[in-house]
C-alpha cells in the first residue's frame, strides 16, 4: 500500500461526495420532500406516468432519490462534524488535564474512559437516544460525548511527555499557571495529532449515525438519512434493489474516503483507531 495511492483515493472519493452534496441542491429538479403518486418506485433513469424524469428513480412515496441522497448526505456530514467537534473539545480537555496534573485526577478521568469503553457504544447510544428522544442536535451531542475516549487517550499520552519538556518546565519556574501552560504549550502541540484522530473518528461516527438511523433511532422523518433510506429499501429488496443499494453506495464513498484520508495521514500499520482498541 503506497502512501500516495491512499491519498489520491481519499481525495477523489471525498471530492465526489462534496461536489454531489453541494451541487445537487442547485439543480432545477431538486426536491427531497415532494411526493408524486403517479411516480412511486420509478426505476433508475426512467420517467413517471406524468412524464417527470428521475435519474436515480423514486421511493415508495414517489420522492426523488437523487435529491434525498444529497440532503441525507448533508445531514450526515453536519451531524458528523458536530460530533467530532464535541468529542475533540471534550477529549482534548480531559486528556490534557489528566496528563498534566497526573495523580487522582488522572485516575478518575482514565477510569471514566475505561468505564465508557466497557459499554459497547452502539448499545449506550441506543439506550440514551431511546430515552431522551433523537433529534439532529441530540445526535451530534450524544455521538460526540460517547466518542471522546480516543482523543482523551492520545492527548493524555502526549501530555505525559510534553509536561517534562524544557519549555514547559521553564514556563512553570517563571510562575506560569497550569491553565496557561496547557493552553499555550500543550494544546498547540497535540492539535495536529488530534486532527488525525478526528479524520478517523469522523468515518466511525458517520457509520454509527447511519446504523442508529437504520434502527429507527437516529435522524427522524421527514428529514432523510442514508441509514433510514436503506431500512426503507429493505422491504423492496427483490422488487427495487436500488432503494437500499444507492444510499449504501453513498455511505461507502464517504466512509471509504475518510478512512483512506486517515490512512494517508498516519504511517502504514498504525491507524489511529488501533491504539484505542488494543488498550
Amino acid at each position: 500500500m503506497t502512501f500516495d495511492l491512499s491519498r489520491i483515493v481519499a481525495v477523489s472519493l471525498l471530492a465526489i461526495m462534496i461536489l454531489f452534496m453541494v451541487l445537487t441542491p442547485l439543480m432545477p429538479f431538486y426536491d427531497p420532500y415532494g411526493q408524486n403518486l403517479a411516480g412511486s418506485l420509478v426505476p433508475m433513469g426512467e420517467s413517471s406516468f406524468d412524464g417527470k424524469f428521475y435519474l436515480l428513480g423514486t421511493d415508495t412515496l414517489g420522492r426523488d432519490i437523487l435529491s434525498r441522497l444529497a440532503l441525507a448526505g448533508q445531514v450526515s456530514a453536519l451531524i458528523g462534524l458536530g460530533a467530532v467537534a464535541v468529542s475533540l473539545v471534550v477529549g482534548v480537555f480531559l486528556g490534557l488535564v489528566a496528563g498534566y496534573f497526573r495523580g487522582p485526577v488522572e485516575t478518575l478521568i482514565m477510569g471514566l474512559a475505561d468505564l465508557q469503553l466497557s459499554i459497547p457504544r452502539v448499545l449506550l447510544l441506543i439506550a440514551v437516544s431511546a430515552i431522551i428522544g433523537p433529534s439532529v442536535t441530540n445526535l451530534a451531542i450524544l455521538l460526540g460525548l460517547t466518542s471522546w475516549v480516543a482523543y482523551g487517550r492520545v492527548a493524555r499520552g502526549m501530555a505525559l511527555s510534553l509536561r517534562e519538556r524544557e519549555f514547559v518546565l521553564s514556563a512553570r519556574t517563571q510562575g506560569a499557571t497550569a491553565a496557561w501552560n496547557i493552553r499555550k504549550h500543550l494544546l498547540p502541540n497535540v492539535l495536529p495529532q488530534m486532527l488525525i484522530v478526528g479524520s478517523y473518528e469522523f468515518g466511525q461516527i458517520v457509520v454509527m449515525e447511519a446504523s442508529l438511523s437504520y434502527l429507527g433511532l437516529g435522524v427522524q422523518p421527514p428529514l432523510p438519512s442514508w441509514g433510514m433510506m436503506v431500512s426503507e429499501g429493505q422491504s423492496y429488496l427483490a422488487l427495487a434493489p436500488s432503494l437500499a443499494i444507492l444510499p449504501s453506495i453513498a455511505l461507502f464513498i464517504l466512509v471509504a474516503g475518510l478512512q483512506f484520508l486517515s490512512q494517508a495521514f498516519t504511517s502504514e500499520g498504525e491507524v489511529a483507531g488501533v491504539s484505542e482498541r488494543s488498550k
Partner: protein
Amino acid sequence: MTTFLIKRVLQSMLTVLGVITAAFFLVRLAGDPAVLNLSAEASGEDIARVREALGLDRPMIIQYFDFIWNVLRGDFGVSLRQNVSAMSLVLERVPATLELALTSFVLGLGLAFILGIIMRMTGSRFVRQLIMWIALGRQAIPIFSFGLVMILIFSVWLKWLPSLGRGTLSHLILPALTLGTYELALYLRLFNASLATEQRQDYVRTAYAKGQGKIQVLLGHMLPNALLPLVTVAGINLGLLLGGTVVTETVFSWPGVGRLIVQSVSQRDFPVIIAGVFLISLMFVVINLIVDVLYGLLDPRVRMV
C-alpha cells in the same frame, strides 16, 4: 500472578459497579417508573400510591443501593408490555446472540489467519495489495449495508441461503459472514505487523541457519508468537462484536438480545432495554477479564504492568 489476578478481578468489579450506576441514571432519565407503569388517566393519588409501593418516595441514595441489590439479584423489574420479568425475556435470547457472536468471531479470526498466511507466503505484491484493499473496502461498508448486499446476492438472486430467521446452519452463514468480516482489515494489519516483528528475531535467523524451509519457520516458529497479539485484540473486539450483533440481528431478523433491545425501544419498554444493555455490557466485561487473564498466563511479561 495472584496479585495480577486479584487486581484484574477487582478492576472488573469496579467496572460492573460503574455500569450499574450508569443503568440507574438511565432508569431515572427514562422518567418516573410509577407513571410509566400506570395508564395515562391515572390520578395523582394513584401515582402517589404506586410511588410508595415501588419505594420511590425514599431518599435517592437508598434507592440507589436498593437498585444495586436488585441488579445483583438479576431483578430489573417487570416488562412494561409483557407481564414477565425483564431479565427473563433477555436471558431467553442470550443463546442466539452468543451463537452469532462466537461464530462470527471464529470465522473472522480464521479468515484473517488464512489470508494473513497467504499474504506472507505469496511472492506477489499484487496479491498482497489486493487482499488488503478488499479488507479495507469491507471495513468501509456498514454492517447493515453489507448484510443487505449479501441477502440480495445469496438469497434474492442465487436463492442459495435463507435471508432471515434462525435454525439451521445455513441461517447462520450470512449473519456470521456479515459480522465476522467487519474487523478483518484490523486483524490482517495486526497479524502482518506481528509477523514482520517476529521475522527480525534472532530465533528466526537461527532456524533458517539450521536449514529449515520458509514454511517450516513460519508455521513452527513464528506463528505461535505472532498469534498472541492477534488473539488479544480479537478478544477485546469480541465486545465490539457484541455491539455489532444489534444491527446484524435486526438485518437478518435473528432472535437475539440485540433485536429484543431494538424491538423494546419501539415499544418504549425501558426495563427490558436496560436489562439487555446491562447484560451485554456484563458479558463484555467478563470476556475482557478472561482474555486478560489468559494473556497473562501465556505471556509472563504482561503481569508486570
